[in-house]
């Protein structure tokens, strides 16, 4: 049976773990810098609300970080259990990159986190700010190493194959491989956008609950302005990344565009239902010659279709749809962040409907991120390392039943944890709002008791 093919199961399991894992580092990378920003604003201005913002968001950060750590531990095991052929073939490249990630970044973040979370009062403000900086820097450095490896798997460079094993000829070329700068930039900006919408969404939620203190306004503004600033840059970087992909992985572009047959003057497909059986699109809505124009900068330029790649091409439909979800979400983020920024700038407040849209888009960054990530990773299939190693070659010999059993276990856990995470984020917002309200009530009636330390 197709569904019990161990390679398919191993891929689904690995994809499920990666999907779950990537959500949390994406938040913690930029949230670390946001917290450093709140902290340094507090130190510079002495304004209490920056510290309130810090203390609220650091709780969400701690939760996010914990989920990232535990799902990251799972990754370090699954490289070996699911893809033993990966390390056997390209271990000389992947091994050092992974090792440097753990050595230079993972330990740094995890150790400094303890000081950042619980060290205030035990260390000086300066050391605490330093620890916050090191956590943020550590998460970013993690992204650097991991994306270097990930990019290398898409556009391998700086190595030679000897007896079926990759041997490095230039570490500089391995790390700064052709797609690395674009992918790293695209990922870090995606992280910034995710956090921008998270800050804005949760603050908008508190705002709707009539919690409109200076800390809520500050985080609302931070989120919206960060998102509004980053989204146009992201669109440009994303386009550059696409041009880079056309050069190195044309089959992925053909799948993204839904172009089955190599042709001159290819049409840009806006919507369709790709059908692998007939190698064509159903219900296609397309603009003639446009794809040739933006891919080759010539109305009649030749664009390679799926038929040019034999059996070495990705499945078209998931890549095609994921790409449209990502672009659609990007456009929505552009509209909402710019309109919100304009309202905040002009009117100093947000209309209630827009506030509700922001709440609905709290996790919009995740949707765009996963869609984009599916485009790039499914788009690499059937290769694990482009042109070097296929996923099927690297798969393990673990019995399908074991993979299926653990897959169900992981999926159940991940769905439960994701639900808990989202509901706890809003629960924390509600709790902060309730505390804020009771504080302002008791401030009015001059009861100092309400100012006690917030134990969590």
């Amino acid at each position: 049976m197709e569904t019990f093919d161990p390679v398919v199961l191993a891929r689904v399991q690995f994809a499920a773990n990666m999907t779950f894992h990537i959500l949390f580092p994406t938040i913690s990378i930029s949230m670390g810098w946001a917290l450093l920003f709140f902290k340094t604003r507090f130190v510079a201005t002495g304004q209490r609300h920056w510290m309130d913002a810090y203390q609220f968001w650091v709780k969400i950060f701690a939760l996010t970080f914990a989920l990232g750590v535990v799902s990251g531990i799972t990754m370090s095991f699954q490289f070996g259990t699911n893809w033993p052929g990966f390390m056997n073939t390209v271990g000389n490249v992947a091994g050092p990159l992974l090792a440097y990630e753990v050595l230079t970044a993972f330990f740094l973040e995890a150790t400094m986190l303890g000081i950042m979370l619980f060290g205030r009062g035990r260390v000086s403000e300066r050391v605490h700010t330093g620890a916050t900086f090191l956590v943020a820097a550590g998460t970013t450095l993690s992204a650097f190493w991991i994306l270097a490896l990930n990019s290398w798997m898409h556009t391998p460079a700086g190595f030679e194959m000897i007896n079926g094993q990759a041997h490095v000829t230039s570490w500089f070329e391995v790390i700064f491989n052709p797609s690395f700068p674009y992918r790293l930039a695209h990922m870090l900006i995606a992280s910034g956008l995710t956090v921008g919408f998270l800050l804005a969404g949760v603050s908008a939620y508190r705002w709707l609950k009539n919690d409109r203190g200076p800390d809520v306004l500050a985080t609302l503004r931070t989120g919206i302005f960060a998102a509004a600033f980053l989204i146009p840059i992201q669109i440009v970087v994303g386009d550059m990344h696409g041009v880079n992909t056309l050069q190195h992985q044309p089959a992925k572009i053909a799948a993204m565009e839904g172009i089955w047959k190599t042709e001159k003057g290819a049409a840009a497909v806006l919507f369709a239902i790709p059908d692998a059986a007939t190698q064509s699109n159903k219900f296609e809505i397309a603009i003639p010659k446009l794809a040739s124009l933006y891919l080759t900068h010539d109305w009649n330029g030749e664009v390679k279709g799926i038929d040019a790649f034999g059996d070495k091409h990705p499945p078209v439909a998931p890549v095609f749809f994921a790409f449209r979800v990502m672009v659609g979400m990007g456009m929505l983020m552009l509209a909402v962040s710019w309109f919100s920024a304009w309202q905040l700038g002009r009117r100093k407040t947000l209309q209630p409907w827009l506030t509700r849209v922001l709440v609905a888009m709290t996790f919009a960054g995740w949707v765009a991120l996963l869609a984009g990530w599916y485009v790039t990773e499914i788009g690499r299939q059937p290769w694990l390392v482009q042109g070097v190693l296929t996923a099927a070659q690297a798969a393990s010999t673990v019995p399908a039943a074991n993979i299926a059993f653990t897959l169900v276990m992981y999926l159940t856990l991940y769905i439960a944890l994701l639900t808990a995470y989202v509901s706890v984020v809003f629960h924390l917002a509600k709790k902060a709002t309730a505390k804020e309200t009771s504080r302002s009530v008791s401030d009015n009636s001059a009861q100092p008791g309400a100012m006690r330390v917030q134990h969590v």
Partner: protein
Amino acid sequence: MFDSIPDLSQPAGWLPLVFALVMALAMLAYVILDGYDLGVGVLLRRADNEAQKDSMIASIGPFWDANETWLVLGVGVLLVAFPMAHGVILGALYLPVALMLVSLTLRGVAFDFRVKARAEHKPLWDRAFYTGSLLAGWSQGFMLGSLITGFKGNLWSTVFSGLIGLCLVAAYCLLGAGWLIMKSEGPLQLKAVAWARGSLWFTAAGVLAISLATPLVSARILEKWFSFPNVILLLPIPAVTLALFIVVARSLKRLPTRLAQNNQYGAAVPFASTVGIFLLAFYGLAYSLFPWLVVDQITVWQAASSTEALQVIFYGVVVVLPVIIGYTVFAYRIFWGKSTALHY
């Protein structure tokens, strides 16, 4: 079998050895550091009230993230330095590894969720924290048992591995209770002394079982320990282990009286001695297994990555590992002494 050791003056000879050492140190650090916080997790169910639970969690709060990172380093070194063994070992341990990962995940997040979720969900997360800690410890012990018996997978070795799992949970409880004796005060501290006494004999049984099983599994290990003059030279290992067990037992007997008089003298003895027992047991095990990564099947050198890759990682390890140890010590110093309530 020592003819299998290549020329150690060549990088191809000494680099795998260095990485085996780094991996062993990382695993040892993991077992001791995460061991105490897993132990505290298992003991959580026996706390009298919410306040005690909060104090127990507070004592491990600033550390557990970093403690688990040692596991990533240990497995990471196995993956990048000995990829062949990584595939064989983790393939053979597929199900216990999956159980451990799910348990560690559940436990790690329950730590955060229990104080952040709705109040009525707190008991649920506490239970998740306890169950996760218990199963993580047990599955690690099961893996240790399987490693010792050489992944035979027959009934006898599975039962043995299951029992080693229980003994490792007891050993983690002993470590965790020792940690709590150091870090807490009042009724919780007294309770921790009682918990430590409860887990002491199971821990001893586990150490004894492993010591007896390893030579039985392999004639080579038997010869390594009991041939002359090795048996005399190695005698200090079991002797000191036994002495440390006696030290812990005596200390646990005297502590309640002293603590009642508000005298904290010797509160660190059970923890420190237990760490000593772990060190010796680990050393004994490493001596038995070396140079094999998989008993009588794959040696450190057979499993090693190419010399060029190891060399690149070696520079990183030499520069970074001391820094990691440095800031780990720094973090522990910051939170030295009795733990206080956690607040951001």
